[in-house]
C-alpha cells in the first residue's frame, strides 16, 4: 500500500490551477504561432496572387474577357495582389428599393423576431444597408470606391487577418495543458481555415459587388467582414478546449491547488 496512492485531495475548482509552468507557452508561441504569422509576412505576395487567381477562375464566366485583371502593387515589404473588376453601380430605383427595404426591416424586425440579439444584429446590418442606399440615392457621385477599390481593401484586410489569426489562436490555445502535436494541429487548422475562408469569401463578395451592386459594399465590409472571422477562431478554440476538457476529466495529476 503506497502512502501516496490515495493521499490526493480532489481539488475544489476555486483555487485549482494547472500543475505546469507557463514557460513552455512562451516557447510554443514563438515556435508555433509566430512562424505561422511570419508565413504571411514573407509569403503574402504569393498568397494574395494565388487567391486572386482562384477568384479570377471562379468569376471569369460572369465577366467579359479582360475585365478581370490581377494587379500587383507595393504594400508593406513586398507586392500585394488584388483583382480589378467592373462594379455594378446601383440605379436610383435599386437604391430606393434598398432604402425602403432597410427601413422596413428596421421597423418590422423587432415585431417579427423574438430573439433579441438577432433583432439587433439584423438591425445593424439593415441600418448599414439603409445608410448605403441613402448615400447612393442622394450622393451617388460622391461614393468613393469602385469595385476594384473594394477588392484592394479586402486584400489588405485579409492579410492582417491571416497574420493575426495564429496570434489570437496561439494566445487562446497554447496555454491549455494539451500535447504539443494537438496544439500544432489546432493552430494549423485555424490557419488553413482562415486561408480557405478568406479566399472563398473574396470570390463570393466580388461577385456581389461586380454583378449585383456596389451598394452592398458597406454591408460586406462591416457586417460580414472581420467580425465573421472571429466566429471560426472561437469555434475551433471551443471544439479543441471541450475535447481537451473531456479527455483530462478525472486526471488529477494535471492540477495543483493554489501554488
Amino acid at each position, binding site marked *: 500500500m503506497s502512502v501516496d496512492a*490515495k493521499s490526493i485531495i480532489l481539488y475544489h*475548482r476555486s483555487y485549482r490551477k494547472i500543475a505546469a509552468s507557463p514557460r513552455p507557452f512562451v516557447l510554443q508561441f514563438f515556435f508555433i504561432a509566430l512562424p505561422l504569422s511570419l508565413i504571411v509576412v514573407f509569403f503574402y505576395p504569393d498568397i494574395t496572387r494565388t487567391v486572386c487567381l482562384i477568384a479570377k477562375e471562379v468569376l471569369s464566366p460572369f465577366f467579359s474577357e479582360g475585365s478581370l485583371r490581377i494587379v500587383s502593387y507595393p504594400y508593406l515589404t513586398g507586392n500585394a495582389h488584388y483583382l480589378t473588376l467592373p462594379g455594378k453601380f446601383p440605379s436610383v430605383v435599386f437604391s430606393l428599393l434598398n432604402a425602403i427595404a432597410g427601413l422596413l426591416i428596421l421597423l418590422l424586425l423587432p415585431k417579427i423576431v423574438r430573439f433579441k440579439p438577432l433583432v439587433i444584429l439584423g438591425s445593424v446590418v439593415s441600418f448599414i444597408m439603409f445608410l448605403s442606399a441613402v448615400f447612393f440615392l442622394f450622393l451617388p457621385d460622391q461614393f468613393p470606391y469602385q469595385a476594384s477599390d473594394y477588392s484592394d481593401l479586402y486584400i489588405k484586410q485579409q492579410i492582417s487577418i491571416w497574420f493575426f489569426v495564429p496570434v489570437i489562436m496561439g494566445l487562446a490555445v497554447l496555454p491549455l495543458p494539451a500535447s504539443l502535436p494537438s496544439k500544432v494541429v489546432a493552430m494549423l487548422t485555424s490557419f488553413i481555415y482562415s486561408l480557405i475562408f478568406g479566399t472563398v*469569401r473574396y470570390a463570393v463578395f466580388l461577385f456581389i459587388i461586380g454583378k449585383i451592386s456596389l451598394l452592398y459594399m458597406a454591408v460586406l465590409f462591416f457586417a460580414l467582414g472581420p467580425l465573421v472571422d472571429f466566429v*471560426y477562431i472561437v*469555434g475551433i478554440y471551443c471544439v479543441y478546449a471541450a475535447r481537451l476538457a473531456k479527455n483530462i476529466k478525472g486526471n488529477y495529476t494535471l492540477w495543483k491547488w*493554489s501554488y
Partner: protein
Amino acid sequence: MLLFLCTIIFVGMFLLPFTPAVREVIKKEDAAPLFINMGYSKDPRYFAVSFRKLMLKAVGDAPEGVHEITLSKPERIRIAGQAEVSADSAIDTVFYVKKSLKSGNNATLRKEVYSRGDVHLGEENMIKALACDGKVTIGKGASFMRWLDAEGDVTISEDCHLGISATCDGVLSVAPGCRFMRLYGAPVIIAQSKITPAAGGKPVEFEPIANGAPTERGISSLPAHNVKNCNLIAEGSLSVGEHAVIHGHVKSHGKIVLGASAVVIGNLFAEKDIEIGPGSRVYGSVFSQGSIKLQRGVTVGSVGRIKSVIGKKGVTLEHGVTVYGYVATEGKGLVV
C-alpha cells in the same frame, strides 16, 4: 458552377463553427448548474463525522464476523469486539471494532477502521483511515493515508505521517518528526511522545478588540518591549521586537517576524511568511499566504476558544508549541 461551390463553401464555413453550439443547445449535455454542496460548512472533522454516520448506518446490529456492506460502494467489513492485530500482519477489509483495538509493530490496515473504544497502534503501522470514539496512541513511524480522528485524546509518537488530517475532540499531542496537512485539537500540542501534555488552563480574559479600533499604517518595525493598542497594517514586512505587546490585529503585505516572548492580542495576517519567536503568544488566528514557523513554546489561541494557524505553503511547529484549534497547510506540515 465554381461560384456556386464557393458560395456553398463560404456559407458552410461560416455556419460550421456554430454547429457544435447548436448541438449543445439542443442536446443539453452540460446544461445543469455547477454543483454547489448546499450542506457544506467548514468542519475540520468532516471526513470522520461523515464516515461514522455511514458506518453506523451500514453496520446496524450486525454480529461479529465478516460481512458485506455498502458504504460509498460495496465493501467487505470485519466486525470484532475487542481486537488485536498481530505484528507484521494485515487487515484487508473495513474494520469495525466494538471495543478497543491494539496492533503490533508493522501492522497494515488497508481499509478504514472504526473503533468504539480506545486504540493503541504499534510502531511502523500503515493505516488508511481511523475513527475512534475513545483515546488513541500511535507508535513511532506510523503512516496514515487519509485521516485520523478521535473523540478523546490522541498521542502521536515521533516520525509519523498523518495523511490529510489528524483531528480530535481532546488533546492532540504530536511528537517531533511528524508530517501533517491538517491538525485539530483542544489543543494541539507539540511534545515528546512520552511526556504528558500540559493540562488545560482557565480561559484567558482580555478586552476584545472593538470594531473601529484605531489603525496605524505604514509601520515596518516595533521595537522590543514596545506596546501598541491599535491595529497595525504594514505595507511591507513587519518586525516585532522581543517582549513587545500588540493589542490589536496585525496585517502585513510582506513578512511578519515576531521576536521572542512577544504578545499579540489579535489576529496575524501576512501575504508572505510568518515567523513567531520562542515563547510568544498570539491570542488570535495566524494566516499566511506563505509559510508559518512557530518556534518553541509558542502558543496560539487560548482555552475555550478556537483559533487557526493557516500557512498556505507550509507550517513548521517546534517543540512546546500549543495551538488551540486548527492547523492547516497545503504545503508541508512539519513538526521539528
